């Protein structure tokens, strides 16, 4: 059983460039920030290191940080440009009983994160969901399709903060 600071130190020693920092601002648990392309390597290390053994991914959540600048597009609505989208990974170890949170941030214009499909199979649908809701591309995911929204949905990514609902979908009126 290790606390997040110890895990951070361990990771920092192992991967000096990939670990960007630790965010202790959160009231409950600290968050380790990671470089998006390296997430898979670090995940493998976290899973296979006998001292860590993070064998289970509890949840993978996409987040729209909404930290870009708001600009008006042609029909006068706010669109966020720039800033980042983030992915949070909540891990725990079934046997060693410790938990940790990882976070990667990727630019909103071209959101790309390495997939952890081969590390934890839990991430399969979670990554598809993050793609569906935020448009984050998970590189090397074998089956990155929409999951909750219809496959032919082309009105954007609904959970982005600047999402606009379409007027019609297949002839059905969408707004109330």
């Amino acid at each position: 059983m290790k606390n997040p600071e110890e895990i951070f130190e361990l990771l920092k020693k192992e991967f000096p460039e990939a670990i960007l920092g630790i965010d202790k601002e959160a009231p409950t648990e600290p968050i380790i920030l990671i470089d998006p392309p390296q997430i898979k390597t670090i995940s493998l290390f976290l899973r296979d290191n006998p001292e860590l053994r993070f064998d289970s991914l509890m949840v993978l959540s996409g987040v729209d940080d909404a930290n870009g600048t708001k600009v008006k597009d042609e029909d006068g609505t706010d669109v966020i440009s720039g800033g980042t989208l983030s992915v949070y990974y909540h891990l725990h170890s079934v046997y060693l009983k410790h938990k940790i949170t990882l976070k990667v941030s990727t630019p909103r214009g071209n959101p790309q994160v390495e997939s952890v499909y081969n590390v934890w199979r839990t991430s399969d649908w979670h990554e598809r969901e993050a793609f569906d809701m935020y448009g984050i591309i998970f590189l090397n995911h074998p089956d990155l399709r929409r999951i909750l929204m219809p496959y032919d949905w082309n009105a954007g990514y609904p959970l982005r903060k600047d999402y606009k609902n379409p007027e019609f979908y297949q002839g059905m009126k969408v707004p109330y």
Partner: protein
Amino acid sequence: MGLLDKEFSDGNVVIAKVDDLFNWARLSSVWQLGFGLACCAIEMMATSASHYDFDRFGVIPRNTPRQADAIIISGTVTLKMATRIKRLYEQIPDPKYIISMGSCANCGGPYWEHGYHVLKGIDRVIPVDVYVPGCPPRPEALLEGLLKLQEKIRNESLRKKTV
């Protein structure tokens, strides 16, 4: 809505009696399509189960639309599901009836404002006979909805409506 409906122009005694018989048969044997969508489906199941017992009114679930008479839209209809429901509706042979159960099916319910993937009312896709309000409606409310539907069927006629 049946094959013979509104085929006869004059209302003689025979037609009136046949009307009564046909309507009686229709209303006493409303077989529902065994199909649940969301939370309301659990209340629909509770209605069919021992305590409330839908079977008392002759309602039994049939799993295939071909053998059903009524479809109870029990829950939130999403855009992805709406086209499927429409198809199910089309597969039911006439005469067919729709009970819209619960706020979500009536008008979108609590999802009316921000539900980007929720159809705001099943009546945008298929015609509804009875609306049952509630979120979810209690089994008693669904039973009442069925009684209202029976009342509606009782007033149907084989005669053409003359203006």
